[in-house]
């Protein structure tokens, strides 16, 4: 799309017609994703701000002719707001954006993510310049006063973490950015790194100065090639401008930052496993204490924070603690990025202040469900997060409230689950992920997640008993309490929460029924004798030889042999085969 815009503009010679700031200023800019994934690709024409959704390369010429040259909107490409049902010309007027609270995402589509000068033109690196003239402890006190909490999952107070790293003695100290975002469906960190890499880098440099670190690593998963590219570019630009390297801005503070690409193991998002991976060892967690702030990378004091946490730092220093604390709630100030997925009208990355309710997000930002069904649960906090029922949708989203109902903010994944989905299957799906991602170092997690998964499979296959239900509860509790790291301790959350809020669905599975009708084990394919023409097409297509019959008589399916693949349904020309139960 980007290339097509550049080509057409050049072909039409419009680069002469469009006013430019400088001779080398290209008329088409590359910005990061604005978060509205479900309507992409989006095209925004400035300065009018007219925005189009679901644009294809075939629309490019028309956009240039009508909107860029003549300033006219193209009605069919405008976004239809699912809440107001009105056509919206400007992205900012869509309720998806209007109802969010932007703090670290407030440069939507306005900035050129690759350019350090564009970042500086927005006030970027002013905080670093200010910080370098301050006492280190003063910076830490500001972060403590802000109440900023780690955005990676645990919500630990960032200022306290910085203070611990500052107080630790060591000839070398390290700073690490945890960008190993492994939750399925979560891409907040990726979005921030791709769209605003300098904000994260500036936060890292300030943090490194505050604790006295000389070297740093950004651990970014290799599945994020654009984020890796953007962050590497940001590092190079910062070095060119004297913002990284030796004697930063003429001070005696020197810092070098490297990018380390993670191979994709979910457990490497756990901070001690991540440190092992940077050291070139197998990414497995270490017992704590000692904490990384005391003995982290290569045994040296190490400060490790999440991408989004660093993304807040420069703004807090620039705009002040008071400004930061105007958003959010007392114990969870500020905003949080969430990635919202599921059958909703609008999905993608959002930013809301802490204290916002789930219902507000689902209805006022995402526009409700796209399939007209009722949302019966949301899963929050990644694969090891909890499933919360509809009656808890009005609770304020913050670290402490979520913890009180057995959930966690986690990294910020929100999945909407409608009433046609089976909660037992949802738990099985997430356990399938965590059991595969278990590093195997500790027995409770390695064996426990496997055992729990096997029991969940019995439920979805219609083979579970009441004894299995008790065993599932017991195993979940063992994994939660006895595992070594956060992955194991939180892995049973989908089971524990669904057992707490949706236990009746487990019981119905024992009683021989999947209430949502999702688990095929409770269903069977049958051939209607009235509709069957005895053509034998189904029998010939069945991979397991489960269908038999003879010419002139209706065919039948042997339920013991049927594997419920549904191939026969697709082959029957008379609609004689249906799924019942």
């Amino acid at each position, binding site marked *: *799309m*980007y290339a097509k*815009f550049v080509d057409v503009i050049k072909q039409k010679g419009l680069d002469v017609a469009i006013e*430019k*700031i*400088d001779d*080398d*200023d290209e*008329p*088409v*800019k*590359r*910005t990061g*994703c*604005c978060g509205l994934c479900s309507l*992409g*690709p*989006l*095209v*925004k*024409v*400035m*300065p009018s701000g007219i925005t189009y959704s679901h644009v294809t390369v075939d629309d490019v010429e028309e956009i240039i002719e009508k909107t*860029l040259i003549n300033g006219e909107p193209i009605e069919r490409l405008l976004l239809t707001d699912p809440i107001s049902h009105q056509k919206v010309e400007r992205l900012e007027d869509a309720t998806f954006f209007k109802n969010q609270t932007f703090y670290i995402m407030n440069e939507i*589509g306005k900035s*050129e993510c690759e*350019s350090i*000068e*564009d970042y*500086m*033109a*927005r*006030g970027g*690196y*002013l905080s670093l*310049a200010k910080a*370098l*003239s301050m006492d280190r402890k003063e910076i830490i006190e500001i972060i403590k006063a802000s109440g900023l909490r780690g955005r990676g999952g645990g919500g630990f107070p960032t200022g306290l973490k910085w203070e611990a790293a500052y107080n630790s003695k060591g000839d070398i100290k390290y700073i690490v950015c945890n960008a190993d975002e492994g939750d*399925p*469906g979560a891409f907040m960190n990726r979005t921030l790194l*791709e769209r605003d890499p300098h904000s994260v880098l500036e936060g890292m440099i300030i943090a490194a100065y505050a604790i006295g670190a000389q070297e740093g690593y950004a651990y970014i998963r290799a*599945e*994020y*090639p654009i984020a890796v590219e953007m962050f590497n570019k940001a590092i190079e630009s910062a070095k*060119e*401008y*004297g*913002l990284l390297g030796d004697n930063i*801005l*003429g001070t005696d503070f020197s810092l070098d930052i490297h990018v380390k690409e993670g191979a994709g193991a979910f457990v490497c998002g756990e901070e001690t496993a991540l440190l092992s991976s940077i050291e070139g060892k197998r990414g497995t967690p270490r017992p704590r204490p000692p904490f990384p702030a005391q003995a982290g990378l290569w045994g040296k004091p190490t400060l490790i924070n999440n991408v989004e946490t660093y993304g807040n730092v420069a703004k807090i220093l620039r705009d002040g603690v008071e400004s930061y604390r105007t958003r959010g709630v007392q114990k969870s100030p500020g905003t949080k990025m969430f990635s919202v*997925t*599921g*059958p909703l009208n609008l999905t993608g990355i959002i930013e809301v202040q802490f204290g916002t309710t789930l219902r507000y997000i689902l209805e006022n930002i995402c526009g409700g469900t796209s399939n007209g069904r009722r949302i019966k649960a949301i899963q929050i906090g990644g694969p090891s997060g909890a499933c919360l029922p509809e009656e808890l949708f009005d609770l304020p989203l913050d670290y402490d409230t979520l913890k009180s109902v057995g959930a966690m903010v986690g990294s910020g*994944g929100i*999945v*909407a689950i409608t009433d046609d*989905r089976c909660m037992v299957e*949802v738990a099985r*799906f997430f356990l399938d*992920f965590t059991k595969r991602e278990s590093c195997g170092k500790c027995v409770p997690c390695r064996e426990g997640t496997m055992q729990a998964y096997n029991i969940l499979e019995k439920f979805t296959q219609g083979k579970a008993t009441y004894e299995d239900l008790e065993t599932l509860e017991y195993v979940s509790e063992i994994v939660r309490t006895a595992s070594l790291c956060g992955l194991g301790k939180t892995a049973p959350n989908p089971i524990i929460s669904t057992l707490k809020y949706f236990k009746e669905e487990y019981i119905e599975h024992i009683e021989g029924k999947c209430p949502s009708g999702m688990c095929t084990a409770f269903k069977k394919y049958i051939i209607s004798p009235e509709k069957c023409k005895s053509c034998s097409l189904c029998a010939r297509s069945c991979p397991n030889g489960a269908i038999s019959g003879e010419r002139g008589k209706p065919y039948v399916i042997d339920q013991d042999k049927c594997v419920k693949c549904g191939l026969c349904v697709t082959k029957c020309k008379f609609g004689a085969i249906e799924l019942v139960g």
Partner: protein
Amino acid sequence: MITTTEKRFDNAQEIIKYIDTLKAKREKKLQKKSYMSVLVLVVQPVARGRCMQNLLM
């Protein structure tokens, strides 16, 4: 890029002054000049089994 000047800053005051210049240029551009911003949703390959949409969409 607003400018492509290669510059290394050796003190805080120098960079603060430079940032002020860039901010002024940006304001001028936002108010007076036509430009186009294209936001393209990048679809990246992810590891098998990681796509939540498989289950829930």
